[in-house]
């Protein structure tokens, strides 16, 4: 439809390089592909140690590291209005047309979206994770999300399960929520040139070793599989508080020669580890999308995973074996995967993954969401306040108050530092030659 129109997009999240994870990856690849499509993209995140100020990345991707220190889990301290002046300056300087926030527990993202709405910008939000409805943390998180999403133009979720979850948590109409999955850089995750021999079957696990990733399930499953199949070996990459339990299990069942523990694996080293195995095992207890499965499938590994969250939507049924998060069912699934193994050709699987997922497709679909967002009608403060008011008996009034104070502060800033006084950034034309190899190079530097 309107892809002639070029946008100037501000990606905002607490999570970006040099930090590493699914969200960071998503923002980076999406930005690169949007740049390739001719849009202008600016990333805003908080300062990482001494990395503060403006940096340029591959393809002219401009990154603002706001000098605002993270206080817990890479999140900035929530000050509600503290970021308004700098956000306003960046929005005006860069002539932003769309603000795109990522991740529900990024405070920077929530604040930026709120200010952008106060200033009348069109706002898109991507939710990367799932939340329950029962515990105290989730209840508060959901209220904050409801506040932010009460007024977003469009929202994006990474899987259909995530969409259902977001709609329930925030009360957004479902037609405003788009499902655009993550993708995988298939050039970076290629299968081994030589097919690994099948005399010994290697099962690879790469995840943080924490409760939510189901490390306790592994503790139950691994000894059983080792007992049933003498030719199976495990390679476990990752670190975390549950590592001790895995090591205890290894000692208890004397499996030191069959379970190799690598410790934390940097992202660039993931592919070599993956291609040394035949089966990838994911034991997560909750997962909105699970990029790890994509990376493994792209390397030609057969995946065994727990059937949680958005995982069943990620791969076609013949590329993954799903099991309930229960040790006995997982053992059965692994046995089924071992019996399926002779029929799996890593190269064929890799080629299929190339067709199923690529970042260019994600960028094009995101572009459509931006077009939708820009077509949303402008609303004045009173119309927007009525939406906040409907968020809850007490919360609604509180949200309205927050928005009104924000509006007044913005008006004050308009007087103190008129928009005309803020210098606009000249458009620097970078040669568009960011192909996949260069992106791969970039990530290997990171």
């Amino acid at each position, binding site marked *: 439809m309107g892809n002639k129109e070029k946008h100037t997009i501000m990606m905002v999240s607490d999570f970006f390089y040099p930090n590493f994870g699914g969200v960071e990856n998503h923002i980076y690849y999406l930005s690169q592909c949007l740049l390739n499509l001719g849009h202008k993209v600016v990333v805003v995140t908080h300062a990482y140690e001494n990395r503060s100020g403006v940096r340029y990345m591959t393809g002219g991707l401009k990154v603002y590291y706001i000098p605002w220190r993270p206080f817990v889990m890479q999140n900035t301290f929530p000050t509600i209005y503290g970021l308004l002046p700098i956000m306003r300056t960046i929005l005006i300087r860069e002539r932003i047309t769309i603000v795109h926030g990522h991740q529900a527990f990024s405070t920077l993202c929530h604040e930026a979206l709120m200010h952008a709405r106060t200033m009348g910008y069109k706002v898109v939000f991507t939710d990367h994770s799932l939340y*329950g*409805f029962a515990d105290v943390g989730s209840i508060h998180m959901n209220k904050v999300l409801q506040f932010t999403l009460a007024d977003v133009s469009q929202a994006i979720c990474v899987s259909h399960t995530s969409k*259902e979850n977001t709609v329930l948590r925030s009360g957004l109409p479902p*037609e405003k929520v788009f499902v655009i999955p993550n993708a995988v850089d298939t050039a970076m995750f290629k299968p081994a040139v030589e097919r690994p021999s099948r005399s010994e079957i290697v099962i690879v696990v790469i995840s943080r070793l924490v409760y939510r990733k*189901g490390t306790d399930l592994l503790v139950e499953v691994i000894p059983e599989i080792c007992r049933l199949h003498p030719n199976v070996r495990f390679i476990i990459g990752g670190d975390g508080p549950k590592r001790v339990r895995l090591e205890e299990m290894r000692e208890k069942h004397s499996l030191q020669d069959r379970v190799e523990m690598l410790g934390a694996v940097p992202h660039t080293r993931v592919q070599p580890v993956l291609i040394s195995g035949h089966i990838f095992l994911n034991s997560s207890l909750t997962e*909105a999308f699970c990029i790890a499965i994509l990376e493994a499938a792209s390397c030609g590994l057969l995946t065994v995973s727990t059937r949680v969250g958005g995982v069943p*939507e990620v791969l076609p049924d013949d590329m993954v074996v799903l099991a309930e*998060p*229960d*040790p006995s069912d997982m053992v059965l699934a692994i046995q089924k995967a071992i019996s399926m193994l002779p029929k799996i050709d890593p190269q064929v699987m890799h080629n299929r993954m190339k067709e199923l997922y690529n970042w260019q497709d994600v960028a094009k679909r995101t572009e459509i969401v931006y077009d939708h967002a820009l077509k949303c009608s402008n609303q004045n403060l009173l119309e927007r306040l009525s939406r906040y008011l409907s968020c809850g008996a007490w919360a609604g009034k509180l949200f309205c108050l927050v928005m009104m104070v924000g509006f007044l502060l913005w008006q004050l800033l308009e007087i103190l530092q008129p928009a005309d006084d803020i210098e606009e950034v000249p458009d620097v034309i970078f040669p568009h030659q960011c192909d996949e190899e260069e992106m791969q190079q970039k990530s290997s530097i990171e």
Partner: protein
Amino acid sequence: MDRNLAHNSSPPRTRWRKVAYGGMQPGYDDNHTDESFLEGMVMNASVVKRDILKVMKDSVSISEYLCIVALVVLVWAYTLSSTLDENSLLFIDASLLVSGFLILLFTQQKLSLGLLLHYFLNICFFITSLYVLAPIYQTLTRSISSDSIWAVTASLLMLHLFLHDYSESTVKAPGALKNPALTSCISVNASVVASVFIASRLPSRLHVFAIMLFSLQVFLFAPLVTYCIKKYSFCLHLCFSIGLMAMTLSFVYMLHRFLFALLLSLLVFVNVVCPYWLIKIQEYKFEINGPWDEAKLCFDITD
């Protein structure tokens, strides 16, 4: 507007599938929502239908303990007004100790002679140290005005009642595995401090010893005794509680009309109004479960 766009797109050819792979599905927008949306959602799956009679029966243990505390306060009041002398107090102490032991003996099967001896030794130590410490308690709060003491004691008792563990006993029977929660420990400590404050207002050393022994016996061991009775037979527990309530109410009536009305309305509130209220607000219960929930492990993790 979104609807219009959806209508403009080419008519659907293949069926829409709930999958994330393979790019945009031809003929469908990314915000396509069909009837399969939220089909995995389950509402109020684990909600238990409560029966009002059962809730009322369960709330009896709360009013039972309320009465016990009211009785303790009564004894304090009579001692402070010198209606009860130290000899009768010591007599009450001894009879409580013996009856408590007898109840434990009948309801607990695990008690043996060795254990009884062990208990007896402990209690001797306890009583001796309390007797030795009595002069300290007596002079502990001499420099503080009585009004402050009453106020602090009243608030400590309120705290004790609010944080008390009504379902179990903080002082465990021998061999119990679970440690008590922090709140119930705070509750026990509040009651002990309140007893010390009251004891410090008394005229003689023997008074202080007798009242301390009485208060500690009740606050520390009454929950254990009532818990044992409840576990032994629920019917006995009901009878015991109702008897206790009647006794307390009659004693309070003799002391003061207004306090009687207060206690009576409190008991009615706890036993009738609260259970009804709980059943009533159950209608508003709204629990959502679905595929996004974190999976529960079906085995125990022993760390």
